[in-house]
């Protein structure tokens, strides 16, 4: 059952993300990217990471993608439909993709010397109860310093964005 759902979500991710890069209309691409995020959060649920799944939907789909859509709609999206979409560089793309695929096969799927974390990895449904608590305690004990650094970085970026935006308004 879980495996069935995993393949369903995986197929969804691949299909939707392929459509994201092939659509010529930017808005359609953005909406399909949202669909990709949904399927990804489905995979997170299957992996037992409920919190991550919800954050994926709340922040990426519900927050960031709305702002993306917002800014795409404010510019003239119709222009993009008439632009040439492909650069005829398929040779390089295929080579790079093949290298990446080989790397994934070698390192992750256990073709060669796999990382220990991936060995014996299995999909389990909801075996880790309350991973909100676990996440909270580990963020505020073991990873306190990186967590605080990240939040200060975000704050600085936010203030920077406001300062930059305000300067253009004043002119």
């Amino acid at each position, binding site marked *: 059952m879980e495996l069935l759902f995993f393949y369903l979500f995986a197929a969804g991710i691949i299909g939707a993300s392929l459509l994201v890069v092939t659509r010529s209309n930017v808005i359609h691409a953005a909406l399909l990217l949202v669909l990709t995020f949904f399927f990804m959060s489905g995979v997170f649920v299957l992996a037992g990471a409920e*919190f991550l799944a*919800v954050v994926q939907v709340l922040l990426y789909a519900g927050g960031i993608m*709305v702002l993306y859509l*917002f800014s795409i709609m404010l510019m003239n999206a119709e222009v993009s439909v008439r632009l040439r979409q492909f650069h005829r560089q398929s040779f390089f793309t295929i080579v790079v993709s093949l290298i990446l695929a080989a790397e994934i096969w070698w390192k992750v799927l256990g073709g060669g010397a796999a990382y220990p974390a991936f060995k014996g990895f299995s999909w389990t449904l909801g075996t880790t109860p309350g991973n909100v608590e676990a996440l909270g305690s580990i963020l505020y004990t073991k990873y306190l310093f990186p967590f605080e650094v990240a939040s200060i970085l975000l704050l600085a970026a936010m203030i920077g964005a406001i300062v930059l935006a305000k300067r253009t308004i004043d002119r």
Partner: protein
Amino acid sequence: MIAELIAAFLKIVLVLGTISLVVAYLTYLERKIIGHIQMRMGPMRVGWHGLLQPIADGLKLFLKEDIIPSKADKIVFVIAPIMVLVPAFVVYSVLPFDENFYITQVNVGLFLVLAVSSLGVFGIVMAGWASNSKYSLLGAFRSAAQMLSYEIFLGFSLIGPLMLAGSLNFQNIVKAQSDVWFVFYQPLAFIVFFIAALAETNRIPFDLPEAETELVAGFHTEYSGMKFAFFFLAEYANIMAVSTVCIAVFFGGWGGIDAIPLPGIVWYLLKMAVLIFVFIWIRATLPRYRYDQLMRVGWKFMFPLAILNIFVTGLVKFLFL
């Protein structure tokens, strides 16, 4: 396994059916209450005191011509109402109605409700863009800005009660209030939550996305027939969902006064009725905010209040509990 699946399926059908019916009758209730507040009768013609009016309305919308503008993006135009309606109904999968009656329990219940209900804005933005009309697009922009801002206050106002409950699971949140409802511990959080909820559901002091005098009807200007009805149903389903969250987090969910022994679901429905009456009452009373006022109230007044509430709750919890 199969018996479980059938039981779950029946529960989902029961909840969805009830909600669709109640939502249809909320439109009747709204017209009736506003009518009486304004010294009018409200709908009177169809059935006794207009009781069959929602069914007549539904039939009318069903039989109406379904117009798709020729310059519209057809696929997105058709998907948009569905994208509004589906999240509005999906949230009911984790909402608590009674101690034993709920569709499912999740550890991240409350968080899931916030996440799923934040997706409704997509439908609105899609509808506004796909209609290819200036009024629709402007309405959608306003709506997106408003909902994104007020979503933040909605989430932040819930952190205080959550710190007291120590869980995101609705069952645990309600059980933590068996003695005192959180509205008495967290009055500030409740005020911020209620105002944010009004804005999130596009209700009257904040119904800028569909301000008739400026935008015709906002993002659903070009919609007709059943597609228009979808937006309408979603709005009322959202009101009920937000009321349920409010009851579960601030008013002790299905718990009541011990002196009057009533089943939990009755207590829940009573609280729901009171909250929905307040929603409609506010609509009949207040004028509409201006756009800059809306943003100022949000960011300069409600956001600091929500943060202050979290800070004070944390301080009290650290010092005394």
